[in-house]
């Protein structure tokens, strides 16, 4: 028992002291402040060294530190898009920290972002495919919105919007439906990736509403998309009636 206590005390006392405020707050190492004085109170952080995250020793989330030039140019784009969300709305959805890094991957699969509503953090890959970069920002924000409002975005209700014989995959990476190109003529889905899971479908609809406002609003010939858009808009308005799409 004495030996056990000694070992326990040893670990308690010499646990490496990460006297790092950012790490203390969001548990991501190797970050520094990029900008924290923003109008909507979002705090932008960036990786100064590569970092790994994960709940077990494998730490399957990887991201690299970006070069300053890319960081500066992408920050402007990200900020412009995220400024569309008010501080009031961001508080309601639990989003406060934006982590900027490059070549973000989870389980070796590249991804545009990793949302974490518990940590109030969204990690964004600033080198994500240029063609979808801005829309992907809103896509990832939606995941935070949904995670913070699970009751509102009911997946069973959502699935009923689709044709009866359609079924989503079990997870977003469980099939090869990864294409993010917007269909020129939609039939219930904006992109191939929308067909992966209900959650990704919702995020794709939301990102199209936010990024292609006119295009998303002119889908009179697609009743499924129309219902989906209405569903998303109604629920967002339930969260914040002053939200502007």
């Amino acid at each position, binding site marked *: 028992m004495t030996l056990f206590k000694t070992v326990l*005390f040893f670990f*308690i*006392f*010499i*646990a490496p*002291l990460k*006297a790092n405020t950012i790490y203390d707050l969001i548990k991501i190492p190797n970050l520094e*402040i990029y900008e924290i004085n923003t109008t909507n*109170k979002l705090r932008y952080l960036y990786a100064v060294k590569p970092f790994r995250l994960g709940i077990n020793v494998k730490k399957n989330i990887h991201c690299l530190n970006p070069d300053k030039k890319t960081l500066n140019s992408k920050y402007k784009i990200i900020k412009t898009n995220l400024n569309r969300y008010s501080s009031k709305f961001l508080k309601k959805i639990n989003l406060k920290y934006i982590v900027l890094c490059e070549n973000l991957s989870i389980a070796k699969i590249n991804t545009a972002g990793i949302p974490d509503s518990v940590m109030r953090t969204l990690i964004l890959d600033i080198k994500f495919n240029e063609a979808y970069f801005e829309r992907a920002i809103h896509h990832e924000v939606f995941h935070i919105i949904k995670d913070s409002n699970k009751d509102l975005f009911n997946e069973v209700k959502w699935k009923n919007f689709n044709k009866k014989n359609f079924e989503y995959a079990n997870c977003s990476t469980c099939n090869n439906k990864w294409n993010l190109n917007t269909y020129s003529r939609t039939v219930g889905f904006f992109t191939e990736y929308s067909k992966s899971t209900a959650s990704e479908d919702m995020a794709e609809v939301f990102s199209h509403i936010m990024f292609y406002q006119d295009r998303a609003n002119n889908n009179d010939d697609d009743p499924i998309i129309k219902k989906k858009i209405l569903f998303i808009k109604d629920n967002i308005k339930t969260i914040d009636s002053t939200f502007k799409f």
Partner: protein
Amino acid sequence: MINKIKITKLERITLIFIILLGVFTIGPLLIIKNKCLFVKNYNPDDFQFNYRDNIIILNANCGNVIIELYPDISPNAVKRFKTLIRSGAYDDAAFYRVIENKLIQAGDLEFGKRENLDYGKVGTGKSGLGLIKSEIDADFKYERGSVGFARTFQMDTEDSQFFIILKDEPLFEGEYTPVGKVLYGIEVLEKVKFMPKFQIVPRPDFINSVKMLD
């Protein structure tokens, strides 16, 4: 008959040298050991305060720390703080978490008191008064000397533990409930015992007392 022996000049010089050596060897040791030697001890009676009922005096090893509370910014937190101070709950509480030149934390009333310090649990103790909601909406700059209520990783878990920052921490704004700010005596807090690379300070310093001015 005893003959008086006269001390030679060399012997006298040697004696003086030994005395001086002793003074210069032991003197600095005594000075270094007394870490409070150059710390000013502020007497609250020497100052005029506009809101005396919001002034508290925290007495630690090196003297008094005079803190102003801000009930307008965080009414519930200040109310809780005053309740605990008036009951003497913070007396003998350990400064159990101290990060050099950054932050000191105290106020674990269950596992962090002088008589029952539990190194395995300190930091997790409760006051018995229940948790209070975070009050983080008001603008408050976390500058050196700011006092805030500590919480767990989740919001609305403030209880009795508090921290005082020794450097500006802009990221704390909107994260932690502010309680007040040190007006005088922050140098007393800079002398609180810390251990580099240690999360919890072994054999920590303690708060002697925390009292309301009125």
